[in-house]
């Protein structure tokens, strides 16, 4: 059982991660806040309560893998990696600058990142490869993969979905950040995905639906996924794009626009 104080701790951590995301993006002057903020609670819970990893030994062979398939949300990834101790928090202020270890989209120069992403739709396949390695080496590490709802319009995702089920990759847990928005507007208007859960179910996945901002639900979903045998799991997390900063919430513009200095100040006040 998770205790109330652990939940509180994770909620505080998530707030801190959100602050770092805002500061980082404001400093960089470009990048993607909306989808970083919507997935913050999920990935904070993952890194600080679920994932088996060691920031002092990023290549530890038995570590759980995490891959951010929706690579544009790397400010979130960089923030949790820095907070976990993979590199100094000061590095965050170099985001998107020439020579930085924190590129505009993830790649291997960042400690804690194994495979590049940024071209949407490939990450579940990458995760499948990692999961096959675990099975071949008879290791029990797990593989987590963050997907965007717009992203799963890519055909490659469904090739991977089919294959994960075919290979019975029960060490895979996908996380769908179902925030309802993509670049050009609402997902249901640009290219409707519904019924989402039924699609994953039909592809042979253990499918869970949760409130992606409720730590208790998040933790229990990760827990449930660990117990599933013979098939991969997906957590369909209903989230709010831009979550935590009122003027960014459900505002399409903040998909790929960094906050100005003033906006960042206002956002940080709300995240105090």
């Amino acid at each position, binding site marked *: 059982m998770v205790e109330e104080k652990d939940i509180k701790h994770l909620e505080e951590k998530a707030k801190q991660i959100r602050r770092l995301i805002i500061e980082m993006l404001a400093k960089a002057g470009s990048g993607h806040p909306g989808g970083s903020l919507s997935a913050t609670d999920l990935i904070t819970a993952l890194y600080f309560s679920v994932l088996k990893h060691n920031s002092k030994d990023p290549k530890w062979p038995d570590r759980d893998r995490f891959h951010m398939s929706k690579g544009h949300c790397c400010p979130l990834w960089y923030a949790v990696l820095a907070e976990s101790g993979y590199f100094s928090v000061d590095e965050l202020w170099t985001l998107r600058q020439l020579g930085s270890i924190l590129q505009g989209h993830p*790649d291997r120069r960042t400690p804690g990142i194994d*495979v590049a992403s940024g071209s949407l739709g490939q990450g579940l396949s990458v995760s*499948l*490869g990692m999961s*096959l390695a675990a099975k071949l080496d008879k290791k029990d590490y797990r593989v987590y993969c963050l997907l965007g709802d717009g992203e799963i319009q890519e055909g490659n995702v469904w090739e991977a979905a089919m*294959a994960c089920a075919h290979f019975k990759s029960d060490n895979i847990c996908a996380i769908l950040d179902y925030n309802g928005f993509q670049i050009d507007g609402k997902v249901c208007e640009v290219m409707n995905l519904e019924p989402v859960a039924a699609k994953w179910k039909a592809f042979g996945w253990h499918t869970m639906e949760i409130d992606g901002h409720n730590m208790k639900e998040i933790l229990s979903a990760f827990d449930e996924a660990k117990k599933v045998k013979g098939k991969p799991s997906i957590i369909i997390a209903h989230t709010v794009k831009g979550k935590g900063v009122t003027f960014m919430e459900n505002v399409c513009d903040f998909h790929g626009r960094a906050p100005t200095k003033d906006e960042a100040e206002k956002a940080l006040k709300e995240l105090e």
Partner: protein
Amino acid sequence: MAEMLYQRDVYGKALVELGKKNKDIVVFDADLSGSTRTSFFAKEFPERFFNFGVAEQNMMAAATGLASCGKTVFVSTFAIFAAGRAWDQVRNSVAYSGYNVKIVATHAGISVGPDGASHQALEDIALMQAIPKMNIIVPCDGPQTREAVIACIDIKGAFYIRLGRPKVPTVENKGKFEFGKAQVITKGDDVTIIACGIMVNEALAAAENLAKNGIKVRVINVHTIRPLDNDTILKAACETRGIVICEEHTVIGGLASSVQEVVAENNPVKVLCLGIKNRFGQSGSPSELLKEYNLTSFDIEEAVKKVIS
């Protein structure tokens, strides 16, 4: 008569041989394992073989994930699908992350024959060359296929190895294979012929005929397209009166483009290119198609004469 071998047969057997020694070798295919001959490995090591079905994009990105965990992953399908259909996955997952993913693509070039244009990869080298850090080998025959497959295991990073469909004659006296080092097969100071893949054999036939007319041709097998052996190419540019380049591929972005770049930048000499020129392929037998697309030893002879005229 030279020995005739399917490069794919040699590849399949080499995989089995290597798989016995190296437990970290894993093989992927996309519903073409019978044709690519990865089926040999599948039979021997079923637990280390994965068939991805007709889903090349998934296969390429999955290979990256698997290789990131320390495996050497051989990925096979037809060249048109490996380089074409899954290009973004090859660029953004395989090459950008740079793990040990070795793409061995079969059925490349016009010599695919009757299947026609949709299956004849005439631009795969160009697609792969456009990607930074992608190592590219085009073996000229069966034995060289084995050497290339063995060599790529010991070199870190992504590879594209290009094989053909038909049986090809074994090229004699080409010396030992060294990755990144072109092979000077015949000596000659009049004209240089630079070729790769099955065109090496056509080049040698042309050189033999030309010798009868007193024209001494230097035939160079550039089996490694990247990294290109600039030294051997420039030496030939200095020592002979011109260069004829032949490849079973579009003249844009493949061997011809790369050789011309090196020559133009360092020592411009007269160059003629034999390759596919702004055309799709079509059905026919391999030999008919080589004729139709001006890729026979006769065409090479004519080009050589033109260069020295």
